């Protein structure tokens, strides 16, 4: 019961934070002048009429109420105006279309990073101050420090360009359809076809981005695990475990590892929440048609409806990840009573 109350309180606080930031953001965006300039050969009056029909010239509080109403009742987040390829399309539809590549790449990289990172960390902790530990720690330090755009470029240049082991660019739907003529794949915009994403061609073209993304996470997990495990390994209950006759392996797996997982597990949970958001840099380098690229595009071309929706999305993902990380401490280790005095 205590936990339930606490969770409710935290969720309430999170929603409050979200609303304050989102409304501030909305008001600040609406205070901006509306740009009605159009591309060559298009009619300005049409755009103005569209804006008027959506009520973009009304007082801001009225617009806010209408905006929230539309989101809640119709799932309508507005339509794109500034980006030529999404002009006149519903923001939500475009967003849904962009989500699968982002999520898939994130999930693949998490699935790769979590086990490898933790395994490396455990290995380094067990071999503390031997050459294996020094090797792993140094590599980890390098991958934590070097920015992702550097090793992503390096990966692209060596693996994909010089050695040609992996495809250079992200496979488009046209490529996939061409690669599997026997499957009779069809792409219709606005729908989601699983078989377009789950095939060898698509998987291979995602791999460079997956690798580039996972390097940093692997290094992070390895460092975290090593630090936690070395601390636990020197604690007194480990000595007790050995004294009562457990082998080193038994003691490590049953006692040390379980205890060292307490701070590591929440960050894994957090990682799986943040698979939604992805990385702007990686998506730019590997030209992935994902949410990050869309956000960048929206920011640079000042498409406010897209900007509002995606900002809200990123904000929500960030807040939710933080909350889940906090709460999972209490779940994994009942001794920890979150928020207790």
């Amino acid at each position, binding site marked *: 019961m205590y936990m339930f109350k606490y969770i409710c309180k935290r969720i309430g606080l999170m929603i409050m*934070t979200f609303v304050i930031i989102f409304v501030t953001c909305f008001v600040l*965006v609406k205070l*901006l002048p509306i740009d009605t300039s159009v591309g060559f050969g298009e009619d300005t009056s049409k755009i103005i009429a569209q804006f008027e029909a959506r009520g973009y010239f009304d007082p801001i509080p009225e617009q806010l109420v209408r905006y929230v109403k539309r989101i809640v009742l119709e799932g309508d987040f507005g339509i794109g105006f500034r980006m030529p390829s999404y002009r006149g399309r519903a923001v939500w539809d475009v967003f849904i279309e962009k989500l699968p590549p982002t999520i898939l790449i994130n999930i693949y990289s998490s699935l790769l990073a979590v086990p490898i990172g933790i395994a490396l960390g455990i290995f380094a902790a067990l071999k503390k101050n031997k050459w294996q530990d020094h090797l792993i720690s140094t590599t980890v330090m390098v991958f934590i420090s070097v920015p992702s*755009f550097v090793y992503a*470029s390096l990966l692209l240049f060596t693996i994909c360009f010089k050695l040609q082991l992996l495809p250079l660019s992200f496979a488009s739907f046209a490529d996939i359809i061409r690669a599997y003529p026997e499957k009779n794949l069809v792409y219709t915009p606005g729908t989601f076809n699983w078989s377009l994403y789950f095939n060898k061609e698509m998987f291979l073209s995602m791999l460079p981005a997956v690798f580039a993304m996972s390097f940093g996470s692997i290094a992070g997990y390895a460092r975290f695990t090593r630090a936690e495990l070395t601390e636990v390994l020197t604690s007194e209950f480990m000595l007790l475990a050995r004294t009562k006759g457990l082998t080193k392996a038994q003691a490590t797996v049953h006692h040390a590892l379980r205890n060292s997982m307490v701070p590591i597990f929440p960050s894994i949970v957090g990682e799986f929440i943040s698979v939604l958001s992805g990385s702007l840099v990686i998506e730019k380098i590997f030209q992935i048609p994902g949410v990050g690229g869309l956000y960048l595009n929206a920011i640079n071309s000042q498409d406010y409806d897209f*900007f509002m929706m995606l*900002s809200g999305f990123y904000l929500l993902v960030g807040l939710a990840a*933080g909350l889940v990380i906090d709460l999972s401490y209490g779940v994994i280790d009942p001794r920890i009573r979150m928020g207790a005095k």
Partner: protein
Amino acid sequence: MRAEEYKISSEKFVFRSTSGDLHDNKLETKPVTYFRDALHRFAKNKASIVASVIIAFLVLFAIIGPFLTPYTVAYEDASYAYVLPKNKLFREMGIHFWDGGQNKEVNKATYEQFRAIQQETGREVIMTEPVVTETVYMGKTSELYSFRLDTYNAVGVKYVLLTTAEYQALQAYQDEKQVQVILPITDPDLRPQAKQDVNNANIWYKTKLGNGMKTTTVYDADGNFIPIYQANDGKDLYTSTMYWEGDEKLYNYAEPMAGDIWNIRVDYREYYVYQHYLADDGIKEPIFIFGTNNAGKDVFTGLASGARFSFILAIIVSVVNLFVGAIYGSIEGYYGGKIDIMMERFVELLSSIPFMIVITLLKYHFDASHVLILFISFFLTGWTGMAGRTRMQFYRFKNQEYVLVARTLGAKDSRIMFKHIFPNAIGTLITGSVLVIPGVIFSETSLSYLGIINLNTGNLTSVGTLLATGQTYLFTYPHMILFPSIFISLLMLCFNLFGNGLRDAFNPSLRGTED
């Protein structure tokens, strides 16, 4: 035990000294202060020492780098765009590394063009003997020439349009320096007919229109190029004593255009030297140690200036954050209670706003320079971390006895806060604010890399912009991204090592654990 045994007669007590006050002996050893101890322990960490030396080197590069080259960030010369990094020493020693050379694999026509440039300008364009391989593609045999190309000398000859006064000044310069800048003009009637090559000044030999509207070279019986220089008609106002191939005035050296303009073929390297001789900007010859980018900007200058900008911005941000955060955190931590709760909510709210939203909204709203926007957004989101650290330290120390003593003695709140408690927080604050620097540099680089912030104006550039430009030419000209990448990686790595050492050194609980 009997009590008498412990009885000591009063005569046995003597005064130690009958005059003067008694003092403790002064300590012989020097006191180890907090900072001395931290420094001592920092010096033991070898990785941190190496890292700080490298950081010092990078900072030095940022400070004196822009003064080492004659180029400025605004400098650009499209003719020398895409040239590779060149080190004069390596070039002269004939080492095929960092010599401005590029390994090329081209078809015969392109190879012949390079050979023609080499023959006309007399400078080495083809640095190695070409290896010819024959490939058959769709039934046609074509030859591929692999060789090392001098990207500087491959620029060759260019057409320039000069007024009569400029033309005569150039002739005077020729006579003064005894160099041939102006080359004979080619006969307009014999110039290549193919549209793409009409303005290519490097074609000084006879060509014809080949298959697919391509310019094809015409050779004489011995397989040599046939010059198409225009014969002298005495109308070109050429009075210089420098003659092509030592001949008397055999050819025309300029072609009159409409108005007071002359079309002239110049040996571009010499013309470049001449231009910078006129401008007197210290540029003696085209040589770029890190190469140039697509616009012909010097990468070295850009990198050094970008680094300098990054360091300055990061240091200012970290100092301002330290000040504001320390004051805010002190008030929070010292007064506690309701004040703390309210101020802490505000901090929480502020720190949960994604950085991207802050910077985008600032960018939309203020038409200010992006440098200012960058600074404001770093400040808005950054100081909360410092405030949190200070607050923690205040909570730790504010209930200690010496604070109570100070208060009992009548010290004011501000005195207790900044004279008594705050010095305890200095260690963590210094570590924290040093570690802010790489974070700011990294964010700034990422933002300009993503194109959200544009710092590439006038005499300003950033490492991120260089990286973004290099990314576009990753496969063709990897040198553009190589040097900025090395810089940023080295900086981040060293700052992390340095920061780790600093954190351990300033952590009193680790004192004595290493020995």
